[in-house]
C-alpha cells in the first residue's frame, strides 16, 4: 500500500524521530542496566570499633571483603557520627561494643549496632539488611565450629531465576513496557495531530481512501517499528546483560503485539480528542508514561503504596503487561500462568479500539457537516 510507504518515508527522513526510535531505548537500557541499581554496591560505611579485639577485627575484615561496602572511615567516638553523616558520604556506622570477644564467649552473643543514615530509607534498610546478613554468616561459621555435637539447623538456599542476584533482571521488562508506550502511543498521536495541525489530514480525508485505511496507514509503520524495537531490546538484553528469554519467544512477541495494539489505539484516541501537539504529548505522558513508570511495579512495588494507587493501577495497561512479560522472560512461565492478565489486557485493548474508532467516526461526521 503506497500510503503506508509514505508514512515509513516520513519517519526515516526525520533524523530526530530516528534518534528517538533507537536512542531512547538504548539509553534507557544502558541507564537501567548499569547505572540505576536497586541493590547496593560499594556503599561507604564507617566503623566505630570500641572493642579492638580479634572478633571485631574479623568482622570488619568481613565487611570490607564484601562487595556491598567500602569502609572509608574509622571513628573514635560516638559524637563524631552526626558530623560524619552531615557530610553526606557515609551511609551507616557500624558500632562494635567494648570487650566483644569476652562477651561473646561468656554470654554466647554480642550485639553490634548499625546506625544508618535513614534520610535515604532504602539505602538504610539495605545497609542494615546486608550487615545483618554478614553477621549471620559469621554466626553460622562460629556455630559450625563450636557446636558440631549440638542439634542445630542450618538452612540451604537456592535463588531461583536469578542466581547471581542481578538487579537489572527486574528492569528489562519494565523498559520494554515504557519504550513501547513511547513509540506506539506517543508517536502515533503526535504524527496524526501533526497532520491535523498542518491541514494535510483534510487532504487525506477528501481522498478516496476510507477512514480506516487512513488510520491503518498511519499506525502500521509504528506497529512494525515498535516490534523491531522489542527485538533490539531483547537482543541487547541477551548479549549485553546476559538475560536470554527463558519462556516462549513466540508467546512473548504475541503479547508484545497485543500491547502495541493497545498503545496504538490509545494514541489514536488521543489524536481524536486534541488538536495541538503539545496537548497530545502531555496527555500521553500523564495518561500512560507516568503511570507506566510509577504504577506498573516497574521499579516501585505497588504493594507498599496507599491502597488507592493499587486500585488505580488496576486500570492501567502497563501494570498487566509487566505482570505478563516478566514471568515469561525471566521465569520461563508459559501461557497457563499469564492467561488471566492477557485476557484483561486484551479486554482493555478492545475497549480502546472500539472507543477510538467511534470517536474518529464522530469527528469525521462533524467535519463533513
Amino acid at each position, binding site marked *: 500500500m503506497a500510503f503506508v510507504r509514505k508514512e515509513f518515508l516520513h519517519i526515516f527522513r526525520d533524523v*530526530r524521530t530516528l534518534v*528517538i526510535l533507537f536512542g531512547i531505548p538504548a539509553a534507557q537500557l544502558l*541507564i*537501567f542496566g548499569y*547505572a*540505576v541499581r536497586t*541493590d*547496593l*554496591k560499594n556503599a561507604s560505611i564507617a566503623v566505630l570499633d570500641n572493642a579492638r579485639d580479634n572478633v571485631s577485627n574479623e*568482622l570488619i575484615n568481613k565487611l570490607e571483603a564484601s562487595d556491598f561496602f567500602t569502609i572509608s572511615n574509622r571513628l573514635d567516638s560516638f559524637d563524631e557520627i*552526626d558530623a560524619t*553523616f*552531615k557530610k*553526606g558520604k557515609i551511609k551507616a556506622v557500624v558500632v562494635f561494643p567494648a570487650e566483644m570477644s569476652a562477651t*561473646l564467649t561468656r*554470654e*554466647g552473643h554480642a*550485639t*553490634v549496632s*548499625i546506625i*544508618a*543514615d*535513614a*534520610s535515604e*530509607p*532504602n*539505602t*538504610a*534498610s539495605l545497609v542494615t*539488611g*546486608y550487615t545483618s*546478613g554478614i553477621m*549471620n554468616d*559469621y*554466626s553460622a561459621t*562460629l556455630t559450625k565450629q563450636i*557446636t558440631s555435637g*549440638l*542439634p542445630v*539447623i*542450618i*538452612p*540451604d538456599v*537456592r*535463588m531461583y531465576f536469578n*542466581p547471581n*542476584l542481578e*538487579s537489572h533482571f*527486574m528492569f528489562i521488562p519494565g523498559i520494554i513496557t515504557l519504550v513501547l508506550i513511547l513509540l506506539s502511543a506517543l508517536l502515533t498521536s503526535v504524527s496524526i495531530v501533526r497532520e491535523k495541525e498542518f491541514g494535510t489530514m483534510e487532504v487525506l480525508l477528501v481522498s478516496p481512501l476510507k477512514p480506516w485505511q487512513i488510520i491503518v496507514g498511519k499506525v502500521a509503520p509504528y506497529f512494525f517499528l515498535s516490534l523491531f524495537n522489542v527485538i533490539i531490546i531483547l537482543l541487547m538484553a541477551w548479549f549485553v546483560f546476559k538475560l536470554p528469554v527463558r519462556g516462549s519467544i513466540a508467546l512473548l512477541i504475541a503479547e508484545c503485539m497485543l500491547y502495541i495494539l493497545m498503545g496504538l489505539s490509545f494514541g489514536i484516541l488521543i489524536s481524536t480528542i486534541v488538536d495541538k*501537539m*503539545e496537548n497530545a*504529548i502531555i496527555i500521553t505522558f500523564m495518561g500512560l508514561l507516568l503511570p507506566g513508570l*510509577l*504504577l506498573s511495579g516497574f521499579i*516501585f512495588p505497588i*504493594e*507498599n*503504596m496507599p491502597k488507592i494507587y493499587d486500585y488505580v493501577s488496576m486500570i492501567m495497561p502497563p501494570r498487566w503487561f509487566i505482570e505478563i512479560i516478566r*514471568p515469561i522472560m525471566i*521465569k520461563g512461565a508459559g501461557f497457563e500462568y499469564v492467561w488471566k492478565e492477557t485476557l484483561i489486557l486484551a479486554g482493555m485493548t478492545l475497549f480502546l479500539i472500539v472507543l477510538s474508532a467511534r470517536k474518529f467516526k464522530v469527528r469525521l461526521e462533524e467535519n463533513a457537516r
Partner: protein
Amino acid sequence: MRRLLFLLKKEFRQIVRNPFMLRAIIMVPLLQMLILVPAITFGIKRLDLAVTDNDRSPASRELISKLAGSTFFKTTAAPINIAGAGALLLSGDADLVLIIPNDFSEGLAGMTKPRLQVLVDAVNSTQAMLAWSYLTSVVRDYNMDVVMATGAAPSAIPGINTSPRYWYNPTLNYKHFMLPGVLVILIIAIGLMLAGLNLVKELETGTLEQINVTPIRKWELIISKVIPFFILGLLDLALGLTVGWIAFDIPFEGSILLFFACSAIFLVAVLGMALFFSTLVSNRQQYLFVAFFFTMIFILMSGIFTPSESMPRWAQQFNWINPVAYLMRINRMVMLKGAGFSDIARDMGLLSVLAMGFISLAIRGYRKRA
C-alpha cells in the same frame, strides 16, 4: 539595562495573560506533591512464604509458627514436592518456599544433621537478599530455643546480633525521603517546560525574528527569559514546600534560607539548560523530546530513587556535570539532617559553576542570525 527592563515588562505581561501558564503554576506543584510523594516507596512488603512440611512433627510446627509470627512473612501451607514448589514461584503465588525434610525432628534429636531447604524467587534481587536474611535470623532464634531447651548454656551457640538504628528518619518513612527529591523534580518541570517552550514558541511564531533584527544583545534577551521564570520557579517551590508540609508533616531540620539559596542556584542551571536546548531545536515537539530525554537521564542518574553510590564509576563521574545530583544531595542533607553551609559548601560551589556554565552556553548558543 533599560532595554532589559522593557523586555521584562513584556514577559511578565505575557505570563499574567496566559491562562495555561497560570494553571500550570498552581497545578503542577499540587499534583506532583500529592501524587508522587506517597507513590514512591521501596520498603519490602510482607513476603509470601509457602511451607512444605514433610515432617509434620511438633518441632516443625514450632518452626512454622515462629516464621508465621515474624512481621516479615505471610505463611501458607504447601504440601508438595520440590517441583511443585518451583511452580509456586513460577506463578508468583509464593515469594519463597521453605521445605522441611521428613527427617527434621530426627535430626534435631541428634540422629542426623537437620537441613532446611529454601527456594527464593530472585527476580527482584534486593527482595530476595533481604528475604534470605530475615529467614536466617528467624532460624537462628529457633536454634537458640532448641539449644536452651536441651539445658545447654546460651554460649553454646555463639552469635552476633545486630540492632539497627535509623537516624534522621527513625520510622523509615519514604515520604521524608521523596519529598526533597520531588521538590527538585518540581523545579525541573517548571524550568524546563515553561521557560524552554516559551522561547521555542517565539521562534515558531516568528516574533523572535523581529527581535533578532533589533540591536538587542544576546545576554539581554536570555536574561529577560531567565528572570521571570526564576521568580515563578521560586514561588512554585514555596508553594510545593507548603503543600508538602501541610500534607505530609515533613520535618525541616536545616535552614530554609539555605534551602532556597541552593534551589535558586539550581533553578538558574535548569533555566540555562532549558534555553540552551531551545537553541538546538526548531519546534516545540522537538524541544519536548530533547527536554524529556535529558531530564530522564539527569533524574535517573541523580540517585533520586536509588543509591548513586551503587552506580559504576562512569555513572558517578557523569554526576559531576549533573545539576540534579547536587541538589538531590543538598536537599536531603539540609531538610532531613540539618546540614549547614559548611557541610554543603563544596556542592553548592560546583552547582554554581554549572549554573554559570549552562547560562553562558545558552547565551553563546543563541543565534541572532540563522
